């Protein structure tokens, strides 16, 4: 229901980060979404198209990785992924497990940029943090 505002927030955040790479075009945005994040992927994809229209992000793919809910069980002293978010029980021993360790994420993991070759790219690359070349 609020996927459009989520999509708009992603556009803002990515536009801001991509500004550090002038001349580059964003081709993909990778998102991590927890099973409890209240985001429906189909709806988000639909809203992504709308939110990116007429922006520099138009045509960029939104790649969503869903993360299962993970609970910590104090008895088993173990973190386990839940098969269903309708039952918060340790999958190992079956006891109720309230200690949530993963599942609420709604995070932009990375963006993929396509940039021109040559001098310009080399010069730009000099002062960019946290990057890896393909």
């Amino acid at each position, binding site marked *: 229901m609020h996927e459009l505002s989520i999509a708009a927030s992603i556009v803002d955040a990515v536009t801001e980060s991509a500004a550090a790479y002038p001349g580059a075009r964003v081709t993909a945005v990778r998102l991590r979404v927890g099973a409890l994040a*209240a985001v429906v992927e189909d709806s988000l994809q639909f809203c992504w198209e709308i939110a990116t229209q007429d922006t520099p992000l138009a045509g960029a793919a939104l790649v969503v990785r869903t993360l299962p809910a993970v609970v910590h069980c104090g008895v088993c002293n173990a973190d386990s992924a839940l098969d269903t978010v309708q039952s918060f029980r340790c999958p190992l021993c079956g006891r109720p497990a309230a200690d949530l360790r993963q599942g*609420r994420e709604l995070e932009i993991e990375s963006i*993929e940029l396509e940039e021109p070759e040559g001098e310009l790219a080399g010069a730009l690359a000099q002062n960019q943090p946290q990057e890896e070349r393909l």
Partner: protein
Amino acid sequence: MTTRIVELRRGVLKKNDELAALLRARFSAARVLVLNLVSSPGAGKTALLQAALTQLRARGLRAAALVGDLETDNDARRLALSGAPVRQINTHGVCHLDAEMVGKHLDAWAAAAPAPGPAASEPPASAANRAPTALQLAALDFLFIENVGNLVCPSSYDLGETLRVVLMSVTEGEDKPLKYPGLFNSADAAVLTKIDLAQPCAFDRALALRNLAEVRPGIPVFETSAKTGAGIDAWLAYLAAARPAREAARA
């Protein structure tokens, strides 16, 4: 062309989370207990809140409410009858409250003109926002934020609240927790409302409690009826116990 991957690791709702953290610090400094009430539309948030505001005031405690709705100030009018300060937030189509809306309304409320004379205890005849009285957080024991009726979107937006309370009415059936686990799992307490209607609705209480415990093990549950007053005392006692300690000197 070259392809470059830039790691961002940035929360999509980072801006909201940062604003919520600032609000939480303000609430804590003002020693006010802030509750974010969430439920489906029609579950009885306003009726429960009306009962709570009236009774807290009767006990000499100071409570106020911020009320979120897409449109209308009907809820603010209803709540103003309790005599407590009330302010309406109209989201105009947005399906949830966010930290920015709450912050803006609290700032506007604090900056409002002081009420003339000793009329502060008189409930305003019309909408609270149109006859604003300045409200300072430090002058409150409790601030209730009534979210927009919605069991999905409010779960993603932290408002800086001390406690998130989810309401579920007996008329909605027993399986809301299983249908909306994201929201129920994020709640600190649950209130079953309209229990005076449990029998006509053939409400299966044991099943409802089991479903709540299944998605949020250990959640405290209060069974209430704003109409008969059942369970309201226990609910208020829970709120009083959760209130941050204040200096004994403050009269």
